[in-house]
């Protein structure tokens, strides 16, 4: 991984909430046009790390660089512009309850572009088709199953043709068939759009199939970060403990 192709670089990131130290010096990078997966136990800080990548959270210490710009020091206006380059699929999809699925997908286009309504319809419908939700646009998020909500969230995340897409546990809580479906969807859309993907997941080993790189977050730091093949065969005890799901080992559980 040469630094030149790193889209995002995270350098020595620290974050605490009150007395609880969540990130204790995270350093890693995300290669342009590739999918990097972060695994780790529940509550280890994966979502917190992800939210630093588009400055939804600001670190206590450390930097996040996107195209060598330190986004932890951006002014309000530049911050909004930077966030426009991201698409985010949140853990619970985070669709706006007050509007239909179609309006949710069309929402960023309506708010952030000057496109005509007909164009907006076409594009939003196209994204809904791509995630297999054709004809579901008129429903409200509360009327959808968990898997459908995730797919709608994915359609919204992709509607602005983002350069970087963050996926927070896209398959947690889904049945294995649907999980594979979502993984294939991520891989397919990544090939279509060529975005830089960051996936947070603990659906292993399935998630390895779509990942170019895998990192493991444990005890507040990145314990291992390798191309997928090497990660899977890593003898690092942290990786071994996680893959085999043991409670005894270097990862502090509870």
């Amino acid at each position, binding site marked *: 991984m040469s630094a030149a192709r790193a889209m995002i670089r995270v350098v020595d990131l620290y974050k605490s909430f009150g007395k609880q130290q969540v990130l204790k010096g995270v350093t890693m990078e995300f290669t342009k046009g590739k999918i990097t997966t972060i695994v780790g136990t529940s509550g280890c800080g994966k979502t917190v790390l992800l939210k630093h990548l588009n400055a*939804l959270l600001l670190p206590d210490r450390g930097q996040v660089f996107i195209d060598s710009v330190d986004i932890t020091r951006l002014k309000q206006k530049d911050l909004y512009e930077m*966030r426009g380059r991201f698409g985010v699929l*949140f853990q619970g999809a985070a669709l706006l309850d007050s509007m239909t699925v179609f309006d949710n997908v069309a929402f960023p286009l309506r708010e952030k572009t000057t496109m005509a309504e007909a164009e907006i319809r076409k594009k939003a419908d196209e994204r809904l088709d791509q995630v297999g939700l054709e004809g579901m646009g008129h429903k409200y998020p509360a009327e959808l199953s968990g898997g459908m909500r995730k797919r709608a969230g994915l359609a919204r995340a992709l509607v602005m043709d983002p350069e970087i897409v963050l996926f927070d546990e896209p398959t947690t809580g889904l049945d294995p068939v649907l999980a594979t479906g979502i993984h294939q969807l991520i891989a397919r859309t990544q090939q279509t759009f060529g975005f830089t993907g960051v996936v947070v997941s603990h659906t292993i080993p399935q998630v390895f199939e779509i990942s170019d790189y895998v990192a493991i977050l444990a005890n507040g730091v990145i314990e291992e970060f390798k191309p997928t093949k090497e990660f899977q065969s890593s003898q690092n005890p942290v990786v071994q403990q996680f893959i085999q799901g043991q409670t005894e080992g270097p990862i502090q559980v509870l």
Partner: protein
Amino acid sequence: MFELLGQIGRFTLTQLAAMGKMFIFLLSALGLAFRRPAKIRLIIYHIKTFGVDSLSVVVLSGFFTGMVMGFQGYYSLRKFNAESWLGSATALSLLRELGPVLAAFMVTGRTGSAMAAELGTMRATEQIDALYSMAINPIKYLVSPRIIASLIAMPLLTAIFDVVGIYGAYLVGVGLLGVSSGSYFSGMESSVVFHDVYSGFIKAVSFGLIITWVCCYKGFHAPPMATGVSQATTESVVLSFVFILVWDYFLTSIML
């Protein structure tokens, strides 16, 4: 002793910091409310929910407040042989004081708590983060339209409360206790001046602002979990009540 002083100091500092954060929240919501593009559709939508949600409870409580005032006013005024001033006494206390305050309490309980719960849920389910990540300012999108809507809807609800209350007292005073209908309204006409209506209006507008401000702030900053939402809802109601009463005292003392 020093321990105690230290604790008082720490407490004061955290409270001051919290107040500061609340004021910044209010100022940015107000600032963004008048920044283009204006969210007319959202404002109309929120006027509708704000008004319609609270209408029935405002009418009901206004009616019973008025009827109670009919009895109590009659009882007190009769001691001075002044029953004929019942209309005037009722109208003045409703317009100047009871209408704005009680209507604001009802709206806090009905609409304010719902606002806190709604924004708290949006925080817990990451909808607010989703807005940020779509480069949309959630304060402008969620809070500013609600503030404008409350500035418009609150005086209207208060006016409805006043009118219903005056007729409630009329029903009891004139219908049950035999005050003459003519003196009920002529007393009102001769004693109520524009300043009374105006001061009630100012109160209603500012109470509307307080309710939306406090309830949106509490919901917006709710800790992201289920208990956080219920806690934010309770706190928003209690804090709104306190702010309304304190601000009411302040306004009454300068506008009397």
